[in-house]
């Protein structure tokens, strides 16, 4: 069973302008196989970038093809280098590790215990956007959470070359 949406609908979805009724229907429908093409096209238009978007990664980060190299680029334009490396190691960080710092986010006593956990905020050096928040015990390494297999995705699943 195949579903497909006009590009305008996907644009509204990306911009979070889709009315709830349409969103609900979309949730309940079979998934549309051509979503990715329209999704990337919409992002390409919204960013106005000359580099081709290869894969949207997070709310603020995209994998783009820049001069034949796949790099991570933030929506503000800040570049984070090779997509195979952990982008989190190239941004800014604020670590909350005291009760007072936790209480800025959560009302007491719904706060974590600093003896068990710290909250790491990863911030975009280009614009100050909050890119991700980790909750880990002190001393825990920073994990590279998502490592897309872009080659397989494009050539085997989509059966087309990686955008240049």
């Amino acid at each position, binding site marked *: 069973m195949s579903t497909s949406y006009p590009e305008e609908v996907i644009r509204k979805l990306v911009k979070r302008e889709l009315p709830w009724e349409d969103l609900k229907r979309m949730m309940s429908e079979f*998934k549309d196989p051509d979503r990715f093409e329209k999704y990337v096209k919409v992002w390409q238009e919204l960013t106005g970038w000359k580099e081709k978007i290869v894969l949207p990664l997070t709310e603020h980060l995209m994998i783009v093809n820049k001069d034949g190299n796949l790099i991570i680029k933030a929506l503000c334009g800040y570049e984070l280098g090779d997509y195979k490396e952990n982008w989190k190691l190239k941004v800014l960080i604020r670590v909350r590790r005291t009760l007072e710092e936790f209480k800025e986010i959560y009302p007491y006593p719904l706060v974590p215990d600093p003896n068990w956990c710290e909250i790491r905020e990863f911030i975009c050096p280009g614009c100050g956007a909050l890119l991700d928040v980790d909750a880990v015990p002190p001393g825990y390494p920073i994990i590279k959470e998502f490592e897309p297999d872009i080659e397989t995705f494009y050539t085997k699943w989509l059966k087309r070359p990686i955008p240049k």
Partner: protein
Amino acid sequence: MKTGIGYGGKTLKEMLEESEKLWRETGYYYGLKELKLRKEDPVKFERFYSRLLALVIGARESVRYIASSPGTREVGELVFAIYTPEGDGVVFSTGIMAHVNTMSRFIKWMIENDYESDPGIIEGRYFEANDWVVGGLHPVDVLQVTPIFYKGQLVGWSGGVIHELEAGAYEPAGCPLSPTRFVEGLHFMGDIVAENDRLKKEYVEKVKINVRFPEIFIMDAKVRLAGNYMIREGVKKVIDEFGLDYYMRAVRELIEEGRRAFLEKVKTVLIPGKYRTAAFIPLNYSKLEGLRRLHPLAQQDTLLHFAYEISVNEDGTLHYDIYAANPQGPHPLHATPTLLRGGLWITLTQILAYDLRVSEGTNRCVSFSAPQGSVLNPTDPHVSTSNVWNVLCTIFGSGVRLLSYGFYARGFLEEVFQMNANDMIAIQLLTPKGLVGGDNMEHAGAGSGARAVEDGIDGGHCLWLPDTTAGNAERWEETYNKLYLHRNFLRDAYAPGKFRGGAARNSTFIVWTDFMQVVFKCGWTPGVFPFDKGMFGGYPPPTPFGYALKNTNVKELIEKKVPLPRNVFEIIEALEKGILRAEEIYFYKTHDVSPHLKYYDIFGIVHKGGAGYGDPIERDPKLVIRDVERGLVSEEYARRIHGVVLKYENGKWTVDLEATAKEREKIRKERLAKAIPVKEFIEKERERILKKDLPEHVLRCYRDTTRISKRWKEEFYKFWNLPENFEI
């Protein structure tokens, strides 16, 4: 020549071996390269499937009302399914989808242990299991299966599972803090519990004195039996209509079709590659006096740690490699690869396979690995799995977030989801009949994490439970002799984000009996540690807690008509002002047991919502206004966390857009000023690690994990650039 009881005169062992051989050799379920029946007459095939589906759903929806347990009747903690003779799941009702694989494992265990010869598998005989060694999850999830015979041949099995409120452990209810299996309560390991479609007397008598709610347990056993009976007789009618050969081939085609459809779904909505995270459960038991009586090492602080990687493979299969986990230990947080599938399927059926036919076919698309001897692959048969849900919620809750990275990258924003875990309470009462008690499933109505397109659900999400409702307050009051003082949402108590997590939910109760004891447990996973993290700048959820106030002046306040507190913040305020008084005040952020409570004492629990999504200062101000109007956010919090400046004019809240833009810019600048480059952070932290300047329980966690996982050790040492001779 001796013939077996199975279809075609084969023994069940022969059938199982044949099925496994065909799978190994061909890669298709039962070697079915062609879906012949489906191809020849798809309408008939669909009709056949609908008949089976109607049987299991019809059974569940009819028999749950036999139950007296609110958990069964109202929360819907039960599931029914039909299996092939070899124990492969064909079709499942709605309900606790954790059991896609558990009953299958139970049936296979009986086949492998030659139940066919001894004690014998005959029509009208029902077998039960709740022991992890046999495929059960934890003692309160009781599995019951019965064979389906057609003209003398075993053609399948019917199975049903119910989550009991109680299984007779040393602590009341479902997830006791049991350091070993010896204090988990009743165990069933393939026991014959009914003959000729009637519960056996010795089973009923055994249950009568070994659990705290015998009436509820026995009624639940009748629910299982009645459901299985309905399904068994229904299947016979289906075979009458479609023919035995059609039935036997069609159930296998359904499984193979389910397998193929799952692979296609993965390829449609995900991205191939590696998805990684680490999940944590603090076991802060060092202050729990008495635990050492149960096990010499049980009373200590331990941080459970799971580092894992999901591989989404080119062919659409998924592999979960949980490569780091603590060694097995004296606590109830163990699982096995079969039990891990419980957590997997309760999540995948709802976020990935909700439009598929979930069966053994989908099950075969996913594989697992976990270190042998770890809490996820124990070698000690005496370890406890009582609190296995804590493990499953923690691992697979974060697993849903990981798959959501794929949904987002693929453009399916409406599929992105973040889950929550359970924060449970159990209650024990002393009555003229002795101790009674069990779970109070208030947590079933907790809030969810945020999605990529909307806020988390405030109340009425609990992916781990079927009907996502806390049940009627009146029914719980009747069960546990307590009165609801309130069920309410808390203000400023959610995980911030562009889309926020569900609001924290709070219930407080007045004790209405002479003897009550409350156990605060389970999802305390994170009483001191947040459950999971958040997505793309959304924060982790707040942490839950419980409380009890003993010898209060609540009776006097009611008599004087002084308004009673409506949430825990008001309770704290009333205590501070001296309006509410209590001789003893208890505050719980771990698994713990209250003292003896009595009339007019009060106790309560805060259930957290799930995690946030996206940068909180990108939140649509309209959503902030909505929350202010609902009492879920204060003006001050809206400004500090979301950078939204509100105005209250003419009885209405509005947004000062200009001030909001300035406030948000200010927050961005503050962030940049307070942050340091990650590389700098790593250098500083490295020094700390070299000095072992970390809490002892964290150091022990790292030490234990490096011993059991070579890969994690290498990652840890490489990340912090530690010398080879360094010992954590």
